[in-house]
């Protein structure tokens, strides 16, 4: 506390002396040419105002006023180099300068306090937003992890309780179920891991320019490794585009959207995945030809909401966490993501800013 006061004091002193010095210099020059003491007083009024504006508290302003009044009296008014307070109209200048400085200091102090308050409130709001995001994520995670785990534990128990009496095809069915659920869990964990790449403080990512087609092709290859039977029509712009991004994260977004299209469209028809440059952003479109998204879910689909109403049944393929993570990732890239319905099927679009073309690459 004391140290801050000391710093404040020195800062005030430096600013005050500096501004008054400049004012004195300016008035000396001005007076040398015009001999007009009223204008000189105005220069000091201006100086006092600036002092009051750029210092903290009332004292510097008042000190500057006193200094100004004395100097104007001493140097620039007849009799020169003499103090004479009986001069006509002098009290008016003195009082005027005092009032100006007092009001300016009061206003600036108030203004500073207000902006500080605003900053604090904004920070609180941002914290709250981050908190909601985290809470949504956790909720989605615990929901999406519990379901497949329950099923894995259940299936293994079923097998261990009666391995002899179980027909062979039943065993295969059980193991396939375990495999499917474990794959799902693995995907979930990879999703979670990607989120750790987003910096905690400012919710941003470290981007570097990546060739668009390489990211797209790697994402699709990884997707096909998991779901070999899925059909995807891919199209990228003819020209070579470098897009600033964290490639691992964007691949995850692409994979999540493609998987959703497979699991939720309710159709075996191919998925269209195409990328286009639109002004200074690139837009990634993932289109399916299935049953589309229920209109009431369109607005909240990225918030991890809406998973409670289908919490039963095959909800381990719920969209909860995947889309929440997509939104987090895209927001960290300063891009946008949205969902909409086509004539036939749903479409997810996300954009990434192209940024300025930098010569140095990084």
């Amino acid at each position, binding site marked *: 506390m004391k140290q801050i006061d000391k710093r404040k004091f020195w800062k005030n002193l430096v600013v005050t002396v500096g501004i008054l010095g400049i004012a004195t210099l300016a008035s000396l020059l001005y007076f040398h040419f015009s001999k007009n003491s009223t204008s000189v007083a105005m220069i000091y009024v201006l100086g006092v105002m600036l002092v009051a504006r750029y210092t903290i508290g009332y004292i510097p302003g008042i000190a500057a006023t006193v200094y100004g009044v004395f100097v104007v009296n001493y140097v620039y008014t007849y009799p020169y180099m003499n103090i004479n307070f009986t001069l006509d109209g002098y009290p008016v200048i003195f009082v005027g300068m005092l009032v100006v400085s007092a009001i300016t200091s009061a206003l600036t102090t108030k203004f500073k306090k207000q902006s500080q308050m605003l900053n604090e409130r904004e920070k609180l709001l941002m914290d709250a937003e981050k908190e909601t995001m985290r809470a949504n994520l956790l909720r989605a995670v615990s929901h999406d992890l519990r379901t497949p785990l329950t099923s894995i534990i259940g299936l293994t128990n079923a097998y261990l309780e009666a391995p002899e009496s179980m027909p062979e095809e039943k065993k295969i069915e059980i193991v396939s179920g375990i495999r499917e659920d474990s794959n799902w869990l693995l995907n979930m964990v990879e999703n979670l891991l990607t989120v750790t790449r987003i910096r905690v403080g400012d919710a941003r990512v470290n981007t570097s320019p990546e*060739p668009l087609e*390489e990211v797209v092709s790697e994402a699709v290859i990884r997707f096909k490794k998991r779901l070999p039977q899925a059909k995807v029509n891919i199209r990228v712009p003819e020209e*070579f585009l470098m897009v600033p991004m964290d490639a691992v994260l964007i691949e995850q977004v692409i994979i999540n959207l493609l998987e959703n299209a497979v699991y939720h469209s309710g159709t075996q028809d191919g998925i269209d995945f195409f990328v286009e440059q639109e002004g200074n952003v690139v837009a990634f479109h993932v289109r399916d030809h299935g049953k589309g998204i229920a209109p009431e879910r369109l607005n909240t689909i990225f918030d991890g909401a809406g998973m409670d109403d289908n919490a039963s049944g095959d909800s381990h393929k719920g969209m909860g966490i995947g889309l929440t993570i997509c939104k987090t990732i895209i927001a960290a890239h300063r891009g946008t993501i949205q969902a909409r319905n086509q004539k036939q099927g749903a479409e997810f679009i996300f954009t990434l800013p192209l940024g300025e073309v930098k010569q140095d690459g990084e």
Partner: protein
Amino acid sequence: MASRQTILIIEDEKNIGNYIETIVISNQYKALRAKNGMEGLSLCTSHHPDLILLDLGLPDVDGMDVLKRIRSFSHVPVIIISARTQEREKVEALDQGADDYITKPFGSEELLARIRTAMRHSVQLSNLMTQEQKYSKAGLEIDFDKRLVTLEGKEIHLTQIEYKLVSLLAKNAGKVLTYDFILKEIWGPFADTDNQILRVNMANIRRKLEKNPAEPFYIFTEIGVGYRMKE
């Protein structure tokens, strides 16, 4: 095959180790298991395996140290087993002399393909004279003697740099080559470490060789690491 080839598995995770061992043994290799780095090193010196599968996250010593120590006395092919999020470690391991890497989770097909590729390249290294004169895969042919590249019988015109790139990848087909390695091979040891120029050249090659640059068939990207050509 006269004698079965031995594969040393250095992996601390019991289940993953079992899994790899099962795959390896059922494909006519002999398997050795080590559950930490020191044990791995001593098995490596005493048994001279034909290939090593090395997990980077070991309980006693850093996997990278194990790799460095193996490389100080042996050229045995080493394949790194890594998690997906460790790009930096992967690149470092490759630049430290690892032959290839495989990312968890992997399937048996993928693992066996990597093992075969690494073994083949180590055989090639040991007798340089018999190096292949041609790369030929699914319509794409590269004749290293005539410096001729043909796709489905038609000649493809590549620039000097592009040809060097393609032939470098083709001679190491199936193996991932890091950006740094390629830059040094093509542009010399004083090349800029910025890989932009490499990626632009690759994009041009892709436009000449691939039907759809977004769905490459011959040259694959491993983002953050490098490129791999179809074997």
